[in-house]
């Protein structure tokens, strides 16, 4: 599947191919006088891992934030399972972010006052799952990622590698259709980087979770099925050799 194509300004003109989980066309986004995205396109299938590469300031994080429904683009559209994310009211987008999307960031973003178990269970609690049930599932998830030992500890009491695995557990607790990972190993040493990436690959291979992996590190991008490059706010698919 190609990540790039001619920019199409409306969903009607850009029917995504069958099976595509999320498709974006002609995304543009400016922050004041700064253009972060100029014309970006993107496709991802269920269970696929796509790396988004680019230099600092190229627009790759803005692309991820648009695709994940965190930021609304100025132009273009994003179809998720046939629905245009850009046309949804904020409440619906927020609902999607809680139920269908998972997020993993470089800093981890764990709540320092909560234990690792409570942090992991948090998305389920926000979705209305009872405490006991949420924490039982959270513990299972921590166990599967090899960090059950951190359950009663607070984020400040665990190592960087463990903390990032707890963050991954939290991101996956709702079994999202897409995991958006922004430089997930940026703060880790090589060994922990490899651990986290292997776990991510394992998650993709075992289930149908797709992963959008933003990274500037080629070694990390090499875990993905394919990669696209963002340069000057435009996407480029190396395999297809086309700008989107």
């Amino acid at each position: 599947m190609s990540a790039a194509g001619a920019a199409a300004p409306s969903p009607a003109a850009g029917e995504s191919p069958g099976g595509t989980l999320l498709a974006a066309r002609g995304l543009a986004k400016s922050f004041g006088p700064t253009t972060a995205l100029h014309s970006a396109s993107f496709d991802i299938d269920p269970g696929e891992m796509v790396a988004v590469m680019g230099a600092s300031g190229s627009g790759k994080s803005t692309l991820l934030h648009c695709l994940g429904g965190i930021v609304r683009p100025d132009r273009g559209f994003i179809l998720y399972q046939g629905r245009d994310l850009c046309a949804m009211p904020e409440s619906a987008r927020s609902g999607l972010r809680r139920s269908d999307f998972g997020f993993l960031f470089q800093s981890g973003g764990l709540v320092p006052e909560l234990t690792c178990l409570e942090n992991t269970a948090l998305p389920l609690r926000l979705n209305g799952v009872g405490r006991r049930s949420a924490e039982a599932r959270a513990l299972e998830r921590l166990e599967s990622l090899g960090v059950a030992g951190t359950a009663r500890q607070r984020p400040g009491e665990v190592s960087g590698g463990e903390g990032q695995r707890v963050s991954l557990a939290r991101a996956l607790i709702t079994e999202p259709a897409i995991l958006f990972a922004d430089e997930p190993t940026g703060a880790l040493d090589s060994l922990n980087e490899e651990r986290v990436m292997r776990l991510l690959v394992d998650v993709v291979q075992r289930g149908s979770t797709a992963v959008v992996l933003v990274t500037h590190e080629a070694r990390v991008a090499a875990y993905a099925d394919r990669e696209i490059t963002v340069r000057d706010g435009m996407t480029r698919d190396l395999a297809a050799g086309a700008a989107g």
Partner: protein
Amino acid sequence: MSFAHTVLGLLENGPAHGYDIKRVYDEHFGLDRPLHYGQVYAALARLLKKGLIEVAGTEAGGGPERKRYAITDAGVTDLNSWLSTPEAPQQYLQSTLYTKVVLALLAGRPAADVLEVQRGAHLKTMRELTRRKAGGDLAEQLICDHALFHLEADLRWLELTAARLDELAEKVTT
């Protein structure tokens, strides 16, 4: 890398036949290219001539005689010297890629495309190595990591050069 020194190193564990040396070598180092027996016996002949190994015994069997080789004191000294001498860091000052980029700029060709195509090829190889690493044992993982880190260094150079292409064009064409 000196192949003869590798053979010498394998013999430090105890006397062995040429067949055993090939088997152990292939197990540890022969991922892409298993050894030919000819390479083993040529290396053994060189080491014998230098006095770094000796024949420790000969066994007659159904086929040709099988010699067992053992490392000598001189061999141990030589091996020790080789192991403790750092390898010269490679300097890549005659990079083919740099030559291609400069030639493209001189000819007014799209030099950025040269870098982009190479970047794609590097990433493809890195993906293959990463998959291979996932299915391999620790030895294979470490060998793949070594290759991955080197390819990554190349990629960083490709990205830096792409970012400075205008500057380079001005320098080589004026």
